[in-house]
């Protein structure tokens, strides 16, 4: 197998059975994602994006098909082995942040290291602080989630996903709960992480967000209908432009 392929799915299907009703959420997905890519998955609501992410992220098993992650056949793993794969190879970022309440930022970020059976990290707290610094929250280490803005909470979640130094970062609508400026901030962070070599797969509804990725895969009714490389837009440039415009607006307001 090609060294540089991180994710390889072949004929993945997912069927949800609800009583006598069967929902075909995925109808055969063949996707190869290479190391270092930043891929956006798009599609209408109900097209199967989250279902695919959950399978790729080792949170769920496909009904049929094969999925290799970093050369490991994931669909054949036991529950415990799958938990270890989630811990060591995957960093997951959710739309709703999913931080533990009443638990400080650094403790949230430490959490994956506590479940690391290999004990690769001697000092979890130190590693957690490093990850928080990397996402620009070095000064918010001991804050509780409810003391942080949405964008900051999502950064804590990203730090938690990064702290185990996973092969890839999966994000299901990471900017779904964020306003436009914070969205661009988080996307800037994703692009920086991608530039430093981390493979990123993210789900989004918005074309703007998808434009920051170098490749777009579009789903419809559980099938891939588009898979294209594109010139990615720089999120940092957008951010600076937005901030400059905002300053102009404020100045105009003050003048009038």
């Amino acid at each position, binding site marked *: 197998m090609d060294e540089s392929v991180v994710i390889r799915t072949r004929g993945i299907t997912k069927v949800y059975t609800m009583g006598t009703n069967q929902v075909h959420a995925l109808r055969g997905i063949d996707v190869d994602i290479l190391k270092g890519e930043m891929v956006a998955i798009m599609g209408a609501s109900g097209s199967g994006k989250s279902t695919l992410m*959950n399978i790729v992220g080792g949170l769920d098993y496909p009904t049929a098909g094969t999925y290799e992650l970093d050369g490991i056949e994931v669909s054949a793993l036991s*529950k*415990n082995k799958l938990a270890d794969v*989630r811990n060591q190879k995957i960093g997951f970022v959710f739309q709703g942040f999913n931080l*533990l309440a009443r638990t400080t930022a650094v403790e949230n970020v430490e*959490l*994956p290291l506590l479940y690391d059976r290999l004990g690769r990290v001697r000092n979890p707290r130190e590693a957690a602080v490093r990850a928080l610094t990397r996402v620009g929250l070095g000064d918010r280490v001991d804050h509780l989630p409810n003391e942080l803005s949405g964008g900051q909470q999502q950064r804590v979640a990203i730090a938690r996903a990064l702290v185990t130094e996973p092969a890839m970062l999966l994000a299901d609508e990471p900017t779904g709960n964020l306003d436009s400026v914070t969205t661009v901030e988080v996307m800037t962070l994703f692009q920086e992480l991608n530039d430093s070599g981390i493979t990123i797969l993210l789900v989004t509804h918005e074309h703007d967000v998808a434009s920051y990725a170098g490749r777009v895969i579009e789903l419809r009714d559980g099938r891939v209908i588009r898979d294209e490389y594109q010139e990615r837009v720089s999120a940092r440039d957008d951010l600076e432009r937005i901030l400059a415009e905002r300053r102009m607006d404020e100045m105009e307001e003050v003048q009038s």
Partner: protein
Amino acid sequence: MRPFRLVKVAGKSILKNKMRTLLTMLGIIIGVGAVLVMVAVGDGAKSQIENQIRNLGSNMLVVTPGSSSAGGVSRGSGSFNRLSLEDAEKIRNESVFVSMVSPVVTTFSQIIGGSGNWRARLNGVDVDYLLIRDWDLASGSWFTPQDVRSGKKVAVLGTTVADKLFSGQDPVGQTIQIRNVPVQVIGVLEPKGQTPEGSDQDDVVLAPYTTVQQRLSRFRFISQILVSTSNQNDIPAAQEEINQILRESHGLAQFEENDFEVKNQTQLADAASGTTEVMTLLLAAIASISLLVGGIGIMNIMLVSVTERTREIGIRMAIGARGSDVLVQFLIEAIVMSVLGGAIGVAVGFGGAALVANITGWSTVVEPNTVIVALVFSAAVGIFFGFYPARKAAAMNPIDALRFE
């Protein structure tokens, strides 16, 4: 996850909900406290009884007529199993291990003395009696072998009798009347207190058994033979030996059961404390029910907690917690709660036992064993009642848990 971290994680989630944790632990606290107090009361009564038995005399064996029922049928009142003076003599002469022997003839009699009269137990005994019972004289003297042989009309009074008959005066040298027979008081016993059954051991008049049998009553049969060995290690051998001698003396065939009993102090103590043991067990059983209820409380709260924290469980699983990690986390939470509750319960139990002792005047004893058992038991309650909720948490599916609202 490493054990220490697990305990830390468990401790943290317990501390996040202090009031609920306290209320949950309350069941265990009350349960353990109640068990401890109950057992302390029972143990206190038991140790008191054992003290009193030890007070009976050292190396003592008691031979009593037993209720024999040959072939399951009682021989009836016509054929009492009786101990006789010959039995006592035989033991004295034939036994190797026995060093002292005294028959005891017991009757009750009205006794008239200096300043009043009093109905008391009259024990006819031999010279060895005092040594066997490890009893001392407060004043006066004890009777001699010569007195016993001749059936001399002399008596030694217990302190209760002495007080009743000669309040304040010295009874030694005075004369008392037993069934219209004048008897000279030659000594007064040291006070000995109550028997395990609660009767006053000092409410007694001791006289030579010959005197009692021949001059003071028509009562010919003896109620007990007291025996002692010079060495404590000889007690079992002496017991066996007396068995042999008396079986032979009573002409018992091989298949017949003993028509007498030979008991050492441990056996006497067991018999006396047997009832308190049953009581202790009963009290402990009742108190254990409250511990059980406490355990059910823990289970209830853990089930609520697992449901409430479904999202947390989902998050932990999503970032790599195995089912077993989640199971252990919740189990430890339950155990920490129950053991902490148990420890507080032990403290409460100590306080409660002291309080009971203070109010009722009973002696209460909290044995170290009871404390250990209480702690182990509360840990077991935590494991037992925490397991089901913990397993429920561990069996969750990460996506379903994450999607839970």
